[in-house]
């Protein structure tokens, strides 16, 4: 298959990934700095009603905490790469394509090989761009030639390395094939030869500068005498071990462009050596546009993988497992030891949990005491599902799950606590597109829905919602504390609490739904059952 991009095996798959309808379900979430706005020299807190200029993040990312993870992975806020993360693949082939590349990049030698190539290409592009800002024609040309030579050398090194040791991943191998095809064309070879010849000719020029009173003379090169070395040899300091550093080499013209004197010196050199400079002007014209777009794009897009791999390394160093998920064809989900990546990166110690769903089980209802890790569990599973679709390794010990074709989430802002009249309506309005678009192969994450109404209503509405989604074939994970009966084909899981001490254990396991059990134990602990209260009050009379 011909090389298309390092991110997608073929154009069709790329188009499909970008077409996901659920991407339109975005939220505006203020980042940490967007809570204040600066006008002039005063700073004002921004109320939530004025959040007009905030970036739109897919709701799934915001809810599962992947946006904070992304901030850590891509600290420089490169918007183009953020977009890559939002384009979740929907087919197993892309996922396998990416996983292969990641596994190849985990090998230090391959990573080194590819990354040094990318760094060299980016450096070359920078040199050529910098050179274009310089006014002096010959200097600008020289920068262009320098950058172009660096670019050609990088390509040669890449091809030589790949020849010695072929690359294991299909994506990387096909890229190298494409580069080889590009570098084998006679036009490229000719340009490369011209560039090398030009650089050699220009850099062979040697000259000497004689600085005298009122003038500077540019003369032919003179190799007699290195005053600094002679001085060092004569004035041997008293240390017995020559531990001192050699003196700094002399560096003239520290800035990008020459100053006025430099320009005149360059002009003098051109007058003295006309042929190399003529060659320089010819070669520069070809050098300016030499960098091939697909190579430049590769150098940029490879950072999608490498920056994520840096985060993976951090997690592994703190002892947490990160693995490549296997793609299940049969709609079963089997995740062991999952944890919330956002928390782990904070760093906060995390407790792993499992998630197993057979084909017949269409969803999970999660209950438990307050602050016992239910939402975190939901986030962890959501992260794993999304990262699987991105082809990236996931935060758990082992995983086998299908590639979901739709991702929807609804995490109510239960922490806000100010129940306003329109909240229920707002919530229902937000849920409507989920019900409309979810279908077979979708994953829906619901967290504490309908918390702004009576328990009875919330239960009825939730049952209807979940039933509707399940009927359409979506997988639903729902956290609630108003469980009535568990819907058919759903599994109940509970966030554990230690029985004696009511200490949150933060693991989520399969168990019958608990909504009051922990409260009973608490009541017993403090002797507040009905009979006990009566007795105690009577006794005190």
């Amino acid at each position, binding site marked *: 298959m011909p090389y298309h991009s390092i991110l997608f095996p073929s154009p069709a798959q790329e188009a499909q990934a970008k077409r996901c309808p659920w991407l339109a379900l975005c939220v505006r979430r203020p980042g940490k700095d967007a809570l204040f706005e600066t006008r002039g020299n005063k700073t004002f807190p921004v109320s939530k009603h004025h959040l007009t200029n905030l970036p739109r993040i897919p709701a799934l990312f915001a809810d599962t905490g992947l946006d904070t993870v992304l901030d850590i992975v891509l600290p420089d806020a490169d918007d183009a790469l953020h977009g890559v993360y939002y384009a979740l693949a929907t087919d197993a082939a892309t996922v396998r394509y990416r996983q292969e590349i990641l596994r190849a990049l985990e090998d230090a030698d391959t990573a080194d090989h590819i990354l040094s190539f990318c760094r060299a290409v980016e450096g070359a592009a920078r040199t050529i761009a910098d050179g274009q800002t310089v006014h002096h024609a010959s200097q600008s040309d020289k920068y262009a030639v320098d950058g172009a030579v660096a670019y050609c050398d990088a390509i040669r090194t890449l091809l030589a390395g790949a020849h010695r040791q072929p690359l294991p991943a299909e994506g990387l191998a096909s890229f190298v094939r494409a580069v080889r095809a590009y570098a084998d064309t006679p036009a490229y070879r000719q340009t490369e030869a011209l560039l090398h010849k030009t650089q050699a000719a220009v850099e062979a020029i040697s000259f*000497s500068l*004689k600085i005298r009173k009122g003038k*500077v003379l540019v003369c032919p090169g003179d190799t007699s005498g290195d005053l600094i070395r002679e001085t060092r040899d004569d*004035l041997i*300091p008293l240390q017995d071990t020559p531990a001192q550093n050699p003196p700094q080499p002399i560096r003239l013209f520290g800035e990008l462009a020459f100053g006025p004197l430099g320009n005149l010196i360059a002009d003098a050199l051109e007058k003295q050596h006309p042929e190399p400079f003529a060659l320089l002007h010819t070669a520069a014209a070809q050098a300016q546009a030499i960098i091939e777009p697909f190579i430049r794009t590769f150098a940029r897009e490879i950072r999608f993988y490498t920056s994520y791999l840096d985060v993976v390394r951090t997690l592994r160093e703190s002892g947490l497992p990160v693995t490549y998920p296997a793609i299940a064809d049969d709609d079963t989900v089997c995740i062991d030891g999952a944890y919330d990546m956002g928390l782990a990166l904070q760093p906060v110690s995390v407790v792993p949990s499992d998630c197993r769903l057979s084909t017949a089980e269409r969803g999970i209802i999660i209950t438990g005491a307050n602050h016992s890790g239910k939402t975190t569990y939901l986030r962890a599973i959501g992260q794993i599902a999304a990262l699987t679709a991105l082809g990236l390794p996931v935060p758990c010990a082992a995983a086998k799950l299908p590639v979901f074709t739709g991702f929807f989430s609804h995490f109510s802002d239960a922490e806000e606590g100010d129940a306003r009249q329109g909240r229920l309506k707002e919530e229902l309005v937000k849920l409507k597109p989920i019900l409309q678009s979810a279908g077979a192969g979708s994953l829906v994450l619901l967290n504490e829905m309908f918390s702004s109404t009576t328990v009875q209503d919330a239960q009825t509405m939730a049952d209807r919602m979940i039933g509707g989604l399940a009927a359409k074939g979506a997988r639903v994970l729902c956290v609630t504390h108003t469980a009535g009966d568990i819907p058919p084909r759903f599994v109940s899981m509970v966030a554990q609490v230690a029985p004696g001490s009511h200490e949150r254990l933060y693991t989520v396991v399969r168990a019958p739904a608990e909504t009051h059990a922990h409260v009973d134990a608490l009541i017993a602990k403090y002797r507040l059952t009905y009979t006990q209260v009566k007795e105690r009050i009577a006794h005190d009379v």
Partner: protein
Amino acid sequence: MMFDLLFQPAPPGASRCTGGLTDDLRLDVLLDAMAAGDARTAQACRQVLLAPLTDAQAIAARREVRGDITAHPKLFSTLLTSAREAMDAADRYAEFQKPRYDHIISPQKKLLTEITIAKQSLKILRRMHAAVTAEHAAFGSGAVTALADTIIRLFSAENVKRMEARLAMLDSLKLSDDLTLSASVGDGLKPAHVVLNTLARPMAGRRRLTEAGIPIALSSVGLIRNAEEIVQSAVTPLLQTVAEFSKSLRDFFNTLSFQLGFYLGCIRLQNRLRAIGVPLCEPDIDDACGGMESDVLCSAGLALQEGRIPMGNAVRFREKRLVVITGVNQGGKTTFLRGVGQAQLMAQCGMFVAAQTYRCPLYRGIYTHFPSGEDTARGAGLLDVELRKLSSIVDCIRPHSLLLLNETFQTTMPADARYMAEITVRALTDSGVAVVFVTHLYAYAAAAYARHQPDTLFLRAERAGTVQKAYVLREGKPYSSAAGDDLYREVLGGY
């Protein structure tokens, strides 16, 4: 290191707890005698004294060096004064090197200053070389031999001549900023592999050689500034080299001044004590001896203050973990304590000791706790201050150290004091600290005496009737009264 006469394992200042040692042991008196008014010597002696050695070999090495220097006092005095002279000269020029707010000193000017300093240092080194070669001595200690060899080898006449010639050549920068550089073309057309070929030499005659090459007239401010920048970039590595050289010479002089200052101070002290007639001896370091043993131990400080030989005491601390000293006021207890402290400190610094014989182990540290009435403690009671000081000593002290307590716990009621004393002293001795405790807490001392422990020694400043046995401590049961009565009658008579 170029040479080392002091054999200190760690840089001085590593021991954190010697803050009060100088005051408590009245080391100032000793230091004044050693320095004879010279501030640098005093500083060097103080730093060395406050960092006693813990390695017998190092102490032996210092003794050897001291022997050599005592045998050739004139030579080492000459070396010391020469080194000081060089340091003074460099300090004078330091003014010129300081960055100023109103203008930047160019590298060329800095280089010229460094060259001047280096030239002066070389003159002095020449003198040192002559002095050492003239002495023609065979030195007994390895360290001094190494120093002499270094001077002879590195500062031989031809070496110095070569260095002076090179500096003279660089001095031509005084005349003009002319120089010649060669380079090849590098990245972005900028010069690469730049080599400084020569500085301009003064023109031989009137004839001006026409030099081939394309001239660029420096006709605008921008061009002149660019040219100056080029000159400065070229001169900077030269400046670095000469500055490094100068600095290494300065370090050499500093070390020489510091280390020789200490040894010459020792010799001065020795001469003064001998003149007074104080018995001096070389200490016998024996780590297995379990405690100090000495005959006629005197307090060197007291001798210097009074100008006559003080009373000597016998010291038999062998196998003793705790020594309790009680007795009459002004009976010489504190003086004795100070004498012990000074002697041990001097022994562990490789010096002589003011006694007829002296044998001691090596303590890992010497600590003192002399609560003084002049504590300007505001807001904290005197007891608080005492305890805080004791606590900071306990932070630093380690097993097998020596702790001298002078009337500690005196600032509170006797019952409380006895209680605290028993706890802390037992804790310290059980941790392996040798404690010498001068105290008026009779109850504490009597109780300790009654326990009859073999590792505790009780000394007392004697009295017999109304005449005090002058300043000699003898072994004996603690007195119940310190004869304050006698003193009262003596001073206030019939009132």
